[in-house]
């Protein structure tokens, strides 16, 4: 396992995901991707679901990847990487690949390609126990197609298919708790992470690479375009998400041992997180106050739940 060390040291890592891609200025996807792929020195094969990252890092005739990379479709990043991993095992056993040089198998998908359309293939690959890490770049909607709702879109968020309107406050449902669902697949390691807590993220990625079997990393990827905030504020929004405990950072080993990996010194109100984003601006209008209260209650309850689990050692 790569020792992540301090940032001065980590920054000597040669990048394996490069500039010249066509993601939005300030996009959190590429920050996360760099923090993940730079967290191992082993060879990597990457599979990526259709989405912003996929499109923007492989616009022909250019690739932004220094490692072998595969995109098949929207719903099958996990199935694709499971095939590559199976071939690796077969060729290694047949002596067609060096046995002493480990290689890692990694898949990226947005929340659409992970929570929704790609969930079946992710669930299947995890259940089959392939040795791979799946990283969800959760920006809480279908941003590649112009910001439609997904099952990761949180309540009250304005999206192009759950729009705020005269009689609508936006998305009606709470987001699906995919990290827990993946933990219950029997994944030996699952964790949440955000780009601003780079060391937490890179350490979890390094741990994930080192874990044998399916690993799931759910990363919150603030979307400057569809969450409607200034591109420069990506890291700040990411910090607000964890400091308000809207997106708590934790890890679960073998489905049974939960550890909270970041505890805000000063837990900030959820409204500070919501208020920084245009997609929630209507919640601050008269008549919608109950939604901010509901958000706070929901967030507090979940934070409580995590702490109780951690305390109980389950």
């Amino acid at each position, binding site marked *: 396992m790569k020792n992540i060390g301090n940032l001065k*040291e980590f920054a000597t890592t040669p990048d394996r995901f490069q500039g010249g891609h066509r993601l939005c200025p*300030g996009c959190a996807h590429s920050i996360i991707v760099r923090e993940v792929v730079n967290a191992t020195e082993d060879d990597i094969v990457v599979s990526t679901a259709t989405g912003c990252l996929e499109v923007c890092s492989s616009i022909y005739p*250019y690739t932004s990847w220094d490692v072998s990379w595969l995109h098949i479709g929207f719903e099958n990043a996990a199935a694709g990487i499971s095939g590559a991993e199976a071939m690796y095992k077969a060729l290694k056993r047949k002596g067609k690949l060096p046995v002493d040089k480990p290689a890692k198998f990694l898949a990226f998908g947005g929340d659409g390609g992970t929570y929704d359309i790609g969930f079946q293939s992710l669930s299947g690959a995890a259940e089959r126990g392939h040795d791979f890490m799946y990283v969800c770049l959760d920006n809480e909607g279908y941003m590649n197609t112009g910001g439609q709702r997904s099952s990761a879109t949180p309540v009250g968020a304005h999206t192009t298919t759950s729009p705020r309107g005269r009689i609508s406050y936006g998305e009606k449902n709470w987001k699906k708790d995919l990290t827990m669902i993946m933990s219950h697949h029997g994944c030996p390691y699952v964790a949440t992470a955000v780009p601003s807590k780079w060391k937490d993220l890179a350490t979890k990625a390094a741990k994930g690479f080192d874990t044998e079997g399916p690993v799931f990393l759910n990363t919150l990827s603030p979307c400057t375009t569809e969450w409607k905030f200034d591109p420069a504020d990506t890291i700040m929004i990411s910090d607000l998400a964890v400091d308000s405990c809207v997106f708590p950072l934790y890890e679960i080993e073998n489905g049974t041992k939960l550890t909270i990996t970041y505890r805000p010194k000063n837990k900030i109100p959820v409204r500070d997180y919501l208020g920084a984003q245009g997609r929630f601006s209507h919640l601050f209008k008269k008549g919608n106050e109950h939604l901010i209260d509901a958000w706070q209650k929901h967030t507090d309850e979940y934070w409580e739940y995590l702490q109780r689990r951690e305390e109980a050692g389950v």
Partner: protein
Amino acid sequence: MATPTERLENWDEFEIGAVLKSFDENGNYSRDHSKTYKVADWRVEKPVFNRDICIDCDMCWVACPDSCFIVEEVVNKRGKKQANIVGIDYDHCKGCAVCVEVCPTPIKSLLMFPEFEDNNNALANWPKKEKKDK
């Protein structure tokens, strides 16, 4: 964004299967790699880096979505390797200003300037005190 004209090959000229190769025979970035593609024209403002103020915390390196911070590996006093920031890759910087936001020094060592501003000019006019956060 259109492909540069010199890279528009005919149907019988490219690798089959739309396969792209990251490196050439010598192990250098190939012409298929986005390292050889420029997104500089996305920018309206650019970050300017002030080496004199930088403390080499490398926050800009880790937070840059476009891998634009050029580092130099050095060995520090305690014998540990560390990365020093030596510049910005303006071919790939889109001017998002995340680096400026994460820069922690009291007077920021990274600031945004208009694209047309001369870097030396910018450095000469560097603020003496940190501006109030917006």
